């Protein structure tokens, strides 16, 4: 492989801290890796594990969740709730063979533009090392390979990904 | 029986023999079980670190690896994961290596790579490295020590000298205070000694400067003995063989250098414990010191301790009240 793998990452940011940190990184023209696409929420406590699963199953290679530092939540203590969910979610993902490192929780206050930028770049590098997750395409690749294997009694389903719409 | 792995350190068998002897003498009355780490090597003192980094930490870590192996309940003797080092420099080196191998994992990895060459490995954080006095004050407890005293040191004016490498940098937060720790004071008081408040208790004795820059070292030694003398001390009590060696063996030279005439004996605290426990002076290495402690020890039992009188209400020209002394256990409520 000559071209370097560019991961796609979805970032969930808290309106009060990390989204503002991202704004600050912008205002200060800090350069960081372009692989993370952000979604604003009011609080990291809004993070439903469904969102992470949706992102991973939909083609994202990693998910970054950012919130206020412990004790600094604008809604007092909701980031602790995000933390608890995050830890259990990582355990569940590990059980599904997804490296827990693909989902990261970062605390960044509104003033920490530098931190936001450096954590983002660092996370992109981590995911780059892990390689593509390629969840949505797993079945497809396998199917191609299976065509050549005539001895096997195992085959790949023909219509693996049926779109789920909300 | 409280079991510990013992890292004696090189000086315990030579310049600090009195320390080694007196430790042996108090182990039994205090129900301590010290198992020596097999085939331990020198910790490198303060010398190896100045030459290079990875070999220095590997040298230290070999001892940790040996200890971890020895304490392993499956293929070792088990029973503890605490290493006790009576020498402050050894204690600091062992504790620091353990800490830095964790703080900077890349260092830990390299050290382990080196250890592998000798068929060893050490996972930082496996062991608890502690100093002897830490064990005595916090594990054995002052109560127990007090109960073993048969010959209280009443009337012996002692300055407690902790030295620098024991209470600092204190990454594990073991001491009451790294400027003015009270562990040694408390212990000596438990022996009945008349403990003098010694502001220089954690100042440096000069370390290796006696070897490489004697004039610097003499100044440091002078500060220590002159202040102890000024405060009327009979002797100094120390916890470190390097401190004892510097103050004891170089006192003569220091006196010559400054034209002074100090005679300040310096003994290991364990020697004083042995005396208080009723051991024969020979048994605890009394007499091995170059500045003789004979006159100082003659004071034991002669003077009656002074008890403090309760504070009287403030008169017109009386002093202003002092704030309470800070202890690290004090809660935030006490801040007001």
């Amino acid at each position, binding site marked *: 492989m000559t071209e370097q793998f560019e991961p*796609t990452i*979805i970032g969930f940011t808290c309106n009060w801290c990390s*989204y503002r940190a*991202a*704004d600050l*990184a*912008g*205002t200060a*023209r*800090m350069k*960081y890796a*372009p692989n993370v*696409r*952000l*979604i604003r*929420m*009011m609080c990291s*406590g*809004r*993070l*439903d594990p*469904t*969102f992470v699963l949706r992102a991973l199953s*939909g*083609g*994202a290679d990693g998910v970054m969740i950012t919130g206020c*530092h412990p*004790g*600094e*939540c*604008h*809604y*007092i203590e*909701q980031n602790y*709730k*995000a933390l608890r969910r995050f830890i259990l979610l990582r355990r569940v993902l590990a059980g599904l063979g997804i490296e827990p490192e693909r989902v990261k929780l970062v605390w960044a206050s509104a*003033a920490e533009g530098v931190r936001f*930028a450096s954590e983002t770049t660092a996370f992109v590098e981590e995911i780059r090392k892990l390689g593509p997750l390629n969840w949505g395409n797993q079945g497809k690749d396998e199917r191609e390979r299976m065509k050549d294997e005539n001895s096997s009694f195992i085959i790949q389903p023909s219509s693996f990904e049926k779109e*789920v*719409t*909300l | 029986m409280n079991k510990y792995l013992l890292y004696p350190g090189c000086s315990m068998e030579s310049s600090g023999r009195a320390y080694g002897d007196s430790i042996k003498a108090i182990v039994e009355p205090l129900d301590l079980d010290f198992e020596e780490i097999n085939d331990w090597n020198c910790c490198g003192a303060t010398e190896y670190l100045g030459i290079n980094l990875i070999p220095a930490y590997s040298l230290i870590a070999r001892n940790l690896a040996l200890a971890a192996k020895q304490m392993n309940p499956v293929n070792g003797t088990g029973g503890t994961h605490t290493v006790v080092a009576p020498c402050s420099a050894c204690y600091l080196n062992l504790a620091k290596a353990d800490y830095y191998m964790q703080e900077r994992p890349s260092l830990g990895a390299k050290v382990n790579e080196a250890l592998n060459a000798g068929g060893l490995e050490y996972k930082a954080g496996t062991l608890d490295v502690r100093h002897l006095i830490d064990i005595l004050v916090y594990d054995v407890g002052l109560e127990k020590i007090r109960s073993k005293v048969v010959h209280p040191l009443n009337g012996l004016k002692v300055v407690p000298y902790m030295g620098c490498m024991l209470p600092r940098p204190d990454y594990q937060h073991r001491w009451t205070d790294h*400027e*003015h720790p009270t562990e040694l004071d408390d212990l000596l008081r438990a022996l009945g000694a008349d403990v003098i408040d010694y*502001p220089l208790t954690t100042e440096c004795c000069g370390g290796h400067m006696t070897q490489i820059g004697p004039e610097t070292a003499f100044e440091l030694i002078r*500060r220590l003995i002159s*202040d102890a003398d*000024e405060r009327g001390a009979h002797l100094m009590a120390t916890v470190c063989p390097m401190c004892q060696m510097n103050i004891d063996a170089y006192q003569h030279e220091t006196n010559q250098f400054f034209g002074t005439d100090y005679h300040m004996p310096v003994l290991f605290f364990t020697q004083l414990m042995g005396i208080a426990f009723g051991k024969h002076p020979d048994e605890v290495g009394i007499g091995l010191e170059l500045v003789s402690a004979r006159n100082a020890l003659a004071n034991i039992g002669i003077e009656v301790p002074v008890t403090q009188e309760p504070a009287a209400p*403030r008169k017109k*020209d*009386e002093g*202003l*009240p*002092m*704030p*309470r*002394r*800070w202890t690290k256990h004090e809660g935030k409520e*006490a*801040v*007001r």
Partner: protein
Amino acid sequence: MSDTRSNPVDKRSSPVEKKIERVGVYVCHCGSNIAGTVDVVDVAKWAGEKLKHQGVVVAREYKFMCSSLGQELIQKDIKELGLTRVVVAACSPHLHEKTFRTAAKNAGLNPYLVELASIREQVSWVHSDKTVATAKAKAVVAGAVSRVIENRPLDEIKVPINPNTLVVGGGIAGIQSALEIANAGFHVYLVEREPSIGGHMAQFDKTFPTLDCSACILTPRMVEAGTHPNITLLTWSDVVNVSGYVGNFHVTIKKKARFVNEELCTGCGICQEKCPKKVIDEVYEAGLGYRKAVYTPFAQAVPNFPVMDKENCTYFIKGTCKACEKFCPTGAIDFKQEDQLINVDVGNIVLATGYDLFDARRVSNYGYGRLPNVFTSLEFERLSNAAGPTSGNIVLRDGKTTPKNVGIIHCVGSRDKNFNNYCSVICCMQGLKFAHLVHERTGATVYNFYIDMRTAYKAYDEFYQRVLEEGTLFVRGKVAEVTNAARRESEKGKLIIQVEDTLAGKQRRIPVDMVILSSGLQPRYDAKEVGKMFGISCSTDGWFTEKHPKLDPVATMTEGIYIVGCAQGPKDIPSSVAQGAAASARVLDKILQKEVTLEPIKASVDHEKCSGCKVCNGMCPFNAIAFIEDDKVSDINPALCQGCGTCVAACPAGAISGTGFSDAQIIAQIDGLLLRNLEPA
């Protein structure tokens, strides 16, 4: 079976009948701010083609979308093309979301059907490769388009405001705030935990840089607050419970038993005179003086009724004495008095809870608590105060010796990772003030030891000049230690300050008679709990967090709760007073509006789906979720809900939904960002 419910909607396989929205996409150049790094023309063209099936009917780019011409462009399209949704790809929503929403509103579109895609702060300003930036901008736009389709029209929420205000803390910031509101004609409850209002300022002798007598300028304010018809003063009282929300707070205040009947007491002071029990006064006298078991902390106390210190009163300890009762001419002593709970309803709350002094004993190398002649700043304030324990004579702890040399150490406990990492702001000026007072009263040689001299603000640096002129010696260096271990004859009997004079590059040992530690400020020991009670957060350092550090410094994230003075962070008297007044302006603004508008970002429970599992009940720190026992379902009070969405994410049955940030919106945005919503090839 009655519980065989069938239901009309399912997400799984039925094609959901969706009305196709008409979406307009507007890509802003922002001059060259965006266009310099992102090919905006390409982004607009791409959106118009690839997102057409989503409902994009028009995609334009324009130089400055936020200009009036740019806004008119959107408004024209809304009217002429019948747009039902708008996406503006421009700057951060924190900057111009309101602008574009208002523009849409004026064109007849519900403002919440407009979404901003941040392609400036998140794309053009942080990336340099134009291809990469353009690709990311497209994804961000696709996410916003998918999301806006799921947006629903929302209406702003209006709540009436109770005109009464609660001010917590009777220091200068709280007094100022209370007076401003009271003078405007509205009622204020001023709650103070100590027996008198006045706060730290009442302990000071002089104030920098003007050297006004602190008591002279403070006392009139205290008296005004104590006698104002619009102020209910509740001293020796604590707030114990707060419920409700902006405009409608319910507050419970515990008025601690004074054991003195306020109706009967005339404040004559005979009880204090006769009380035989002397106690070290840790609060007002900073531990440097004494008071009685029944006492008013100082002569000018407001109110002037004494309180009985139950812990130290001989009667309460031994059951006999009652000297105060015997001598009280009006029979005001009442040993049977009990704590009282008072409930008040208020519309706004101002927190002016102040600071604690850093405990200098923690810096053991400075010897405070071990070396008698090391004093803290607050001790020195009492020492130099004419009404203090030494009647203003600056003397050593022996109570009589005047120091000949004095060292003042700055940054004690501040700017130090071992203690508090922040700068305490006031210590430099305080150190200069002390230097001046020592010089003036004793003629002693004064040293100031500082790391950096911080004398910003009006007339402060001039004061520094003045103190220099008076001959105070300045040493740039953080003091290493204060010791009584003399090394030479001249040091004997002195305190030696050991420091590197960093400008001279040499270590110095300076013998002095007295050391004053310019201790830093730190949050009140109970700031965390107080914050929790009022529903506001604290920073890592422990200070209350303001809504915006620059543009909204006295408001908090909880509507209707304001923070002033040192509760928000270290500051001097002028800044505290300014904040007190600023918060009052905000409160009056709220009161005069008579009702408050809340963002319609709220959670609500679908009672049909709610199983009453109560998982959400523990999720809300604002107590907005209540369990309705009759129906066995949970319910959310929209007025209390702050819109964080934690309960929405927590509901195991998926029965809670949140406006503004619904599951549908976020899922759609995820799909959009991952480009799963493109025109099928």
